[in-house]
């Protein structure tokens, strides 16, 4: 179950401050990296919602992000609609897509679920890849950023855009945290721990999981809108399975089921990727090994492990619980 603990709040604030400073005092390239981190972090938060709390490890979250991005791009750049409504349409499209995938897979678990989401993600990728009107493999450009000049913000300035991104990251985290702490989120955790008992308590677990996927699609969609506005250009690359794969690696690396872990994981992964890319072209192998190593090391991830040690340390100082009856048969 999710609780917004002090450790998590402190880590969240620290991460945001770090990113803000890195962007402010670094070069233009530093801001590019920070935006990349933001997009991946939001995507990973949306995945953690499903995987960490619902036990639904999905490999189609990249596709959810891509659907929102394409929806936004098509409405604004191709059809000339105003930007905010276009973004809403994009988000809506992502919610519909993930809701449908969630509905179809709602009675499956574990391995079948992963395989099915991989397949449906690939289906979305193929759809955009083959669409000549949307530029196929090359995608299309001509996308604009939100016009916030009425509140004095020049979104085409890379630093301003980065700050807005950080705000959206905080909002995405906050919204997800609120939902995970609500009745809905706690029931989702319950379904993950014991679906059978939840059914016996009268919960339609399949419908619940589908809704969780739909909400997850909304959060992933936020990442998609940022991605489209960042490069002012869109291509099917967002929907390739490796994007979903990276999101999964980030969640595991940071800490599954912690919501803050994905942000830490995104920072680590993007920074590592850029470092490694200076020396070699083969960073896929590297992040694959990172994933394997993280799982072999216990699977808690960097933040998850820190949290575990922290909880153990603080528990030693708590008073012991009252002795309970001896009654083992």
């Amino acid at each position, binding site marked *: *179950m999710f609780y917004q603990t002090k450790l998590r709040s402190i880590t969240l604030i620290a991460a945001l401050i770090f990113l803000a400073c890195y962007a402010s005092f670094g070069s233009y390239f530093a801001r590019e990296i920070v935006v990349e981190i933001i997009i991946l972090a939001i995507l990973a938060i949306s995945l953690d919602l499903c995987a960490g709390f619902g036990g639904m490890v999905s490999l189609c979250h990249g596709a959810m992000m891509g659907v929102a991005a394409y929806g936004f791009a098509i409405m604004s750049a191709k059809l000339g609609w105003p930007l905010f409504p276009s973004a809403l349409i994009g988000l809506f499209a992502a919610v519909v897509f993930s809701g449908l995938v969630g509905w179809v897979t709602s009675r499956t678990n574990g391995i079948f679920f992963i395989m099915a989401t991989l397949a449906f993600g690939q289906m979305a990728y193929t759809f955009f890849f083959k669409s000549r009107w949307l530029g196929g493999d090359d995608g299309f450009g001509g996308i604009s950023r939100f016009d916030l000049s009425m509140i004095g913000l020049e979104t085409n300035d890379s630093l301003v855009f980065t700050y807005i991104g950080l705000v959206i990251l905080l909002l995405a985290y906050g919204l997800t945290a*609120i*939902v995970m*702490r*609500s*009745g*809905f*989120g*706690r*029931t989702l*955790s*319950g379904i993950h*721990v*014991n679906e*059978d*008992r*939840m*059914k*016996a*308590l*009268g*919960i*339609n*677990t399949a419908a*619940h999981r589908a*809704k969780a996927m739909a*909400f997850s699609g909304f959060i992933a969609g936020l990442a998609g809108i940022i991605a489209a506005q960042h490069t002012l250009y869109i291509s099917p690359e967002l929907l390739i399975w490796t994007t979903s794969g990276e999101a999964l690696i980030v969640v595991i690396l940071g800490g599954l089921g912690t919501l803050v872990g994905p942000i830490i994981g995104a920072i680590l992964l993007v920074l590592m990727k850029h470092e490694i890319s200076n020396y070699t072209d083969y960073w896929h192998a590297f992040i694959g090994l990172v994933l394997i190593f993280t799982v072999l090391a216990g699977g808690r991830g960097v933040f998850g492990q820190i949290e575990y040690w922290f909880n153990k340390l603080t528990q030693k100082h708590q008073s012991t*619980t*009252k002795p*309970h*009856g*001896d*009654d*083992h*048969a």
Partner: protein
Amino acid sequence: MVTTMLEVKSLSKDFGGLQVIHDLSLSVTPGERRVILGPNGAGKTTLFHLLAGTLKPSNGEIFLDGQPISTYDAVKRARLGIARSYQKNNLFETLTIRENLMLAAAAALGKSTHMFKDTSKHADIRQRIDEIAEQVFLEDQLDQTVATASYGNRRQLEVGLALATRPKLLLMDEPTSGVGPNMIDRFHRLLEQLPRDITVLIIEHDMDLAFGVADLITVLNFGEKVFEGTPTDTRGNATVRDIYLGTGGDHA
């Protein structure tokens, strides 16, 4: 006015040639405590599966409070007021006892799908948790994780989860199974203190408990009902004695 809470008519269940329940009929009045007795393999747990909806009958009908429920799935039956405690603990192992009860309370109070409010802070949920914890004697253990709680406490929680939904019909499958002699008294008290607006069906092997709490007893053997009557009549019945030869009433 409905005079039966649970009506079972000619219920049968077979698993591809193996007949587990055969032509079983019974009728339970509201507020009654009905004990189901029978040797291992008599079909008692299967009967509970059929009542709760986790198994579909091959034949026959089930009525809850006058409503036919044979075609309803487990989720729907739970919503209609059937709750169940399991012979083997079926708990939320990685959560605390409080969190377990919270999930049940939220489900019962219709708050499981609320997306924005922190339901653990709601008064009605807290109240329900406290009430149930008191009923099953777990008030002091609420913050323990289930996985590390004692077996007895876990059995108590098992009943607590079922009670938290304030069911019409409570199916208890061997509630004292595996519980040591020190705790049996606690379970006797627990059962005696259950409110009479709940109708209770209990599968039990503990004869003292069975005869102590039962209004009526139904005895099953090989999936069929072989006897039904008051505790006194049951004790004196020859057929029942034969079935329990060597394991029956002499066992304290």
